[in-house]
């Protein structure tokens, strides 16, 4: 679906009230309809919606002492008095703020529609029927089965009209959909008895993939059974295979910060051109990626999106800048102004000021082939299927967590399922120190979009596994 012109006018209405205010300023608005179905076992526990949410974030930038003062305030109060109060609060806040950017200007005219796939057309047209159908499809693979059953879950979708206006005359909008699926499958015949056989999935996407869900249900069932029969993870330093599901928790959060303007401004970004990974690592930031979570014609402060190289053959190429950080570093925005974070963040963005961040990170495929071929090539090692949650540390680059489900690789095949123990390391390390990016021995050839990352599986050498 081509991103159409939005029917909502939240930002435009607010902008009309500040039109004569001294700039630069911008307004980011969202009008959201949200629908949810919560399930308990195979029964609907609660239906929610429509939940209607409208709000905006107002930002004002004023030159001061060789830098700028930046005021920002977010609100759901769209009344005349509410907008006036929000503007006043942002203006007052700006008097106490400081930022080392010079000659800041905001982007001018924007296309009123783009060619970016950012909204699920069926979901947009028939949200309630669409999510009811999808939940039925999620539950269908478990109908009549005795060995596995749904434990609980929820499907939460949002239909978002994004509007944007600024003091440079930009005025544009597009539509976005988001879907969050949380679903747990429980095996009922694990040898360790009740409590050990669950596979718990959390997926964020732009659209509901009706075609894939049936096969995913079968895969989750297998993994729930494997979790029930898993052996303790043996300890040791070993070669590890990380699938996109695990990498998506690690790379956007750590690299998105360390290769971005906030880190650059504070001396934490590696020098451009420095070797941050192996020669087999190519990484882009692509705000136009089809159905990427942040895909849109432009970023959250009106700069046109593009596919930009972050790392090429292991060398750091381009940083991620928003308008303010670009100007603070004598450069320009790279279209990296984001109003959310790569870790846990709310489903509405208008309350968050722009900061540099990735949209969809795209890790280029290598010559490792399919997952099966990667496993065969590895020979001996560990496939980490799921971590408890890696909670990566953007500042130090450290990541790691408990192995909720893994598989030992023996003789080039997945063998014993394992769980427990921890695996971890550092995604991006100082020169000369070991890191995940420097330890990739093979890059798979079949990328998958998971959350904010499109990547194939990676074979990583010598990660420390603390086993039972």
């Amino acid at each position, binding site marked *: 679906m081509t991103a159409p012109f939005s029917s909502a006018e939240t930002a435009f209405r607010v902008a009309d009230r500040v039109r004569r205010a001294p700039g630069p300023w911008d307004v980011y608005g969202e009008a959201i309809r949200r629908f949810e179905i*919560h399930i308990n076992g195979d029964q*609907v*526990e*609660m*239906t*929610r*919606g*429509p939940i*209607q*949410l409208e709000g905006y974030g107002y930002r004002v930038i004023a030159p001061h002492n060789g830098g700028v003062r930046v005021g920002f*305030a*977010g*609100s*759901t*109060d769209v009344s005349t*008095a*509410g907008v006036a*109060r929000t503007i006043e609060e942002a203006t007052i*806040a700006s008097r*106490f*703020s*400081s*930022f080392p950017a010079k000659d800041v200007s905001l982007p001018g005219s924007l296309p009123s529609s783009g060619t970016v796939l950012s909204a699920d057309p069926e979901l947009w047209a028939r949200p309630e029927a669409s999510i009811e159908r999808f939940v039925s499809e999620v539950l269908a693979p478990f109908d009549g089965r005795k060995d596995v059953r749904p*434990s*609980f879950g929820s499907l*939460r979708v949002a239909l978002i009209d994004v509007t944007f206006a600024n003091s440079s005359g930009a005025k544009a909008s597009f539509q976005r959909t988001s879907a*969050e699926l*949380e679903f747990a499958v*429980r095996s009922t015949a694990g040898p360790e008895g009740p*409590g*050990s056989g*669950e596979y*718990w999935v959390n997926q964020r996407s732009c659209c509901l993939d009706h075609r894939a869900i049936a096969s995913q249900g079968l895969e989750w069932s297998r993994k729930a059974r494997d979790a029930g029969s898993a052996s303790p993870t043996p*300890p040791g330093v070993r070669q590890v295979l990380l699938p996109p599901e695990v990498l998506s928790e690690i790379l956007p959060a750590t690299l998105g910060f360390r290769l971005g303007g906030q880190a650059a401004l*504070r*001396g*934490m970004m590696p020098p451009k051109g420095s070797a941050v990974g192996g020669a087999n690592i190519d990484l882009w930031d692509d705000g136009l990626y089809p159905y990427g979570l942040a895909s849109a014609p432009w970023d959250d402060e009106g700069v046109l999106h593009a596919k930009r190289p972050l790392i090429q053959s292991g060398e750091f190429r381009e940083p991620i800048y928003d308008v303010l950080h670009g100007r603070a570093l004598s450069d320009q925005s790279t279209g990296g102004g984001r109003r959310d974070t790569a870790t*846990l963040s709310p489903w509405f963005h208008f309350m968050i*000021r722009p900061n540099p961040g990735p949209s969809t990170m795209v890790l280029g495929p290598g010559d490792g082939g399919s997952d099966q071929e990667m496993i065969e090539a590895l020979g001996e090692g560990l496939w980490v299927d799921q971590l*408890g*949650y890696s*909670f990566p*540390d953007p*500042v*130090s680059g*450290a990541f*790691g967590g*408990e192995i909720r489900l893994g598989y030992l690789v023996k003789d080039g095949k997945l063998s014993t399922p394992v*769980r*427990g123990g*921890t695996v*971890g*390391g550092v995604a991006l*390390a*100082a*020169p000369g120190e070991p890191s995940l990016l420097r330890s990739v021995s093979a890059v798979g050839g079949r990328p998958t979009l998971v959350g904010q990352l499109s990547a194939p599986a990676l074979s990583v050498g010598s990660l*420390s*596994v*603390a*086993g039972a």
Partner: protein
Amino acid sequence: MPGVVEVDDLLARLLHRIERHAPYAEVMAEETTSHLVRYDRSATVVEPSPGFRGAMFRAWGPKGWTEAGASGLEADSLTTAADSLIQHLGFAGGAPDPPGESSTQRGEASTKTQQPMGEVPVSERVALAQTWFAWATEVKGIRNAYATIQSRTDIRLFLSTAGARTLQTIDRTRGAVAALAIENGKVEYDFTGRGGMGGAEILAEITPERVSRAAHAAVELLQAPSPPVGRMKVLLDPSASGTFAHESFGHGAEADQMLRDRSYLKPLFGKVLGPESLTLVDDGSLPGGWGSIFFDDEGHPSGRTVLVDHGKFIEALHDRETAAALHRRATGNTRRADFLSRPFVRMTNTFVEPGAMHLEEMVREMRDGVILESCTSGIEDPLGGNMQIKVKKGHLVRGGEIGPIRPSMALSGRVLEFLTAIRGVSRKEDFEMSPGYCGKGHTDLLPTGTGGPYLLSEAIVGPA
């Protein structure tokens, strides 16, 4: 735009309209304002959020619970939300009452603060953040520091067709300092933070000593070798023992997980799980607690629930539905993250009660192992009963002596084995609560307090 108190009558009228289509209905209206100051060497950020408000209606019908809501508290948006709920209920008459007992609680309560944040000018907040920054950066090797001051006022009005009406105003204040050490491209940090229900008096708990300790640790971490790996004795500091109480045990004690047959603790009710020295508590009425509330979002008063009493698992946390199903009483733990989010059984302030051991005695007792400090995260595994707790730093213990610092570590293992292996709980002098945020799964984050004294046990430790 009106505030929640001004729409009290309108909400009551809309509930009565819904009542013609459902045996029971309720509404939670919310109005929040917040303010953030963040200072570091590069930038000063001042960020007010002057208006975040709206209401959510919930009703019981033939299809179970149904909710509809909207941002804004104007008559038209509230009426639209109520009408939308009626339209979705599908009520044809004769529906049974909802499960459990409806609260009929009526009351009003507000945070008592020594110094309301509203009386602290922005200039003073910025100046305080600058002071914290200076304390951190005067330590040699510290290149930068983030000093953060947050305040938030949350007003919630709950009304139900059963006659409940609760109105609460909660002020929460939080301060934190993260000191950054950078050398040859390597970045490390450590942090300290305080937070609770209250005002500016909480910020006074950020002392030069606390900040200096964090700053020195950050510098030491730059040179720290890899963390230890394997099963070993572990001494959890108050932040880590609190996270254990919350993530590893507390989530399994949320009774909705038991109704879903998704708690490893369900078959262990009434059993002895740990030593006599172990008592675990959730207390939503804890004075000044970061996770404290006066009433929950079903209208029940908050309270203290002893989950584990001297080693014995004696109680779970309940909403109206789980209380009815498991023949208990609602414990005041039904919480919505905000008016947009659904209610779940949630924790408030969860902690390990102090024990009798001196810290020095515990270090000698463990002899060899690691002290886990500055907890950064944890995640639950309510069905599997495994645990994951991550810390920013720790110290090796060799021969009963505290040794060198070690960087980020993750602790894992089976919760029940960890409980059995507990060898000591330190005294009340060591007890400390930490402010944090908890999700139900990966969403619905809300403020929860965690804490305890030091806790000695055994677990798997690895890099993180």
